[in-house]
């Protein structure tokens, strides 16, 4: 007698546990609660006249009108673009350079490469506010300022690092380059360790010069990592406000008030939650557009 096998019926618990949905649920909940919801809330608040000190508000386009009509709007964008562009270019260039030097040092068994790596990394580990205070002491224009003391020894007058609007932006950008170079170095150094030694060796045997090896082999192979580096460093610099707050507070005038610092000032100094949220949406748009551009470039490169 043959017994027909009953079609196996899975209980609902088996269905649920067998599906990836259950395992993804905690992550989805956390992402929605800490990422999606705040973004939606910021966008909603940007269309209100909400303040930090009261619970009453109404929906309006006034926050965007005031933001775009502010006499400092284009100054803020200009300062941000200069700060980000110069920071990103130099952080990537110097990070790449230091990574190459440290790698060459390590290959030659030089202990100094470990010291250099550690020293550069320490800049990355220091909180932004502390970096702002350190550079503030270095830049001081009075007799106590370290850099101006050194300049004074050479017989020149003091340099207005923080009291001249143009010099202040340059000083803040320089401090940010110092701070961010370490991160670029780490990424590039990690990338260099993954380069195929046989390809580099073959190029050397074929008579390629060091410059040719760098431009024809190392850079193309490192391109994906450099692109990731570019995305992270750009977004990170756009979001920087802690170091600038400690170093200049946005001054003199508003010459160093970058977008992220402006958001902080509008919400926590002037209590304009609506206008601060509108500025945050602007920053979100800038970051989104830049990420899309980078991703497209990456796709074209892969294709």
């Amino acid at each position, binding site marked *: 007698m043959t017994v027909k096998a009953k079609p196996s019926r899975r209980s609902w*618990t088996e269905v649920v546990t067998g599906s990836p949905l259950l395992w993804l649920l905690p992550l989805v909940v956390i992402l929605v609660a800490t990422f999606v919801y705040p973004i939606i809330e910021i966008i909603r608040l940007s269309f209100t006249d909400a*303040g*930090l*000190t*009261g*619970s009453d508000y109404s929906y309006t386009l006034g926050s965007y009108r*005031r933001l775009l*009509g*502010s*006499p*400092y709007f284009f100054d803020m964008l200009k300062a941000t673009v200069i700060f980000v562009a110069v920071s990103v270019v130099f952080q990537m260039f110097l990070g790449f350079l230091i990574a190459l030097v440290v790698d060459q040092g390590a290959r030659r068994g030089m202990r100094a490469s470990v010291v250099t790596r550690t020293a550069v990394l320490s800049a990355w580990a220091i909180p932004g506010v502390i970096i702002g205070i350190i550079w*503030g002491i270095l830049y*001081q*224009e*009075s*007799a*106590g300022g370290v850099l101006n003391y050194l300049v004074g020894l050479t017989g020149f007058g*003091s340099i*207005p690092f*923080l*009291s*001249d*609007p143009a010099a202040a932006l340059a000083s803040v950008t320089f401090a940010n380059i110092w701070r961010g170079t370490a991160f670029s170095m780490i990424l590039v150094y990690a990338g260099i360790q993954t380069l195929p030694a046989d390809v580099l060796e073959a190029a050397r045997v074929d008579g390629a010069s060091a410059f040719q090896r760098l431009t024809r082999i190392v850079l193309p192979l490192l391109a994906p990592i450099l692109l990731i580096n570019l995305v992270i460093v750009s977004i990170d610099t756009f979001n920087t406000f802690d170091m600038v707050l400690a170093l*200049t*507070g*946005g*001054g*003199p*005038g*508003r*010459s160093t008030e970058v977008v992220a610092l402006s958001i902080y*000032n509008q919400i*926590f*100094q*002037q*209590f304009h939650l609506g206008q601060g949220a509108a500025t945050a949406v602007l920053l979100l748009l800038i970051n989104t557009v830049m990420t899309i551009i980078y991703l497209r470039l990456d796709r074209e490169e892969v294709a």
Partner: protein
Amino acid sequence: MPTGERSVSRRDFLKLGGASLAGATLLGVAGCGGGGGQSSGPSIGWQAIPSYSTEQNTDPGRVEYLKKAISKWEGSSKYSINARASSSDVTAAMAQLLQQASQKRAADISQVDSYIFPRFYDYVYPLDDYLGDISPDQYFPFAKEAMINNGKVMGLQFTTDVRVLYYRKDKISTPPASWDDLISTGKKMKQQGLTPYLFPAGRDEATVTTSLFPYFWAQGGELVDGSGKAAFGEGKNREAMLNSFDFIDRCVKTGVTPKRVTEFSQETDINGDASSGKTAMFLGGNWQVGLLKQIMGADKFTKQWGVAPIPSMSGSDHATTSGGWVWGIFIKDKKKQKAAVDFLKAVFVGDQGMAQWCNVGGYLPPRKPVFDVSAYKKDEYTDTFRKYLNEYAHNRPASKSYQDISTALQVAVNQVVSGDKAPKQALDTALKTVSG
């Protein structure tokens, strides 16, 4: 599949989950109820900014006084004090407190910046019934004005401060009274190789409270109108503000003030220059006396430095800015209100409490009789500060527009000093920012 293999049934799972949830809720409720209080009896919530608190304070002298005084009061009361934390960013702390007060979540006793206190009138309870021997008339006029609304005492101010001109009395025989005097004295000091005149001009509140408003108020200027809207750009107010900017510009252009003053965000940032022996005059606060005595040595400081009213355009009708802190009571329960005032009188507001707290913190008492209490430690400068508090002191306006006004004017002073904008241009931009 035999059911025996299931270690936990669905019902068991639900029971276990329900029990866990209930347990967690109970724990949460217990945690909220405790609130950090150390006694099982009734407690009074007390929220102070970090430098005035027992929990977040970095000054051992203040903590020692507070712990002793609070413990002594708790010994004589059925209530205990339940300290609550606050932000160290004063502006953010006040914004947060306003939000809490509007939602009826403020601590029973909360510390409020005196100039902003009128914005809390709707949330605090009158204290007249509990004051005892403390009378509002004992307070300096500017403090009394902030504490009283519609004839009722709404809060108790317990510290104050005042801004003055510090000058090298070993180099300058008569301190400058007018702007012209200051420029000519400054030029003489420059010839002697001294930095003539410093003041805070960074992106912070001190730039307006210390380096701008005293000039403006001395000309009769008003920052806001009766409805609380910005009025510094209209009529005589505009003229007074433009004169003040012109004077700051003149200080920089004549070389009396270096552009690097934009690096000074707070009055105490000038301490290094003041103690270096190379500065002739600076604008600062009374609290710098104690700090500079520590840095320079008390004898050297008192021999070198004198204080005078902040120079005015005319040389008379001086003005200065005062501040300080007020305690507000946010609890409806009358018994707790009485106990709260009793606590404040013992630790901060009564003769002994105010004298001792002002001693440990280096503050000035806002109640005039406290200056004569034996426990209050006076120094060579105290009587002068008291005179200025009585005659020249102004409070910042409490209107909602003040934060915008302050930020716009800080930026304007910055721009004038750094040479980024001419005085008129800086004023017009500030007006546009505030009215935008």
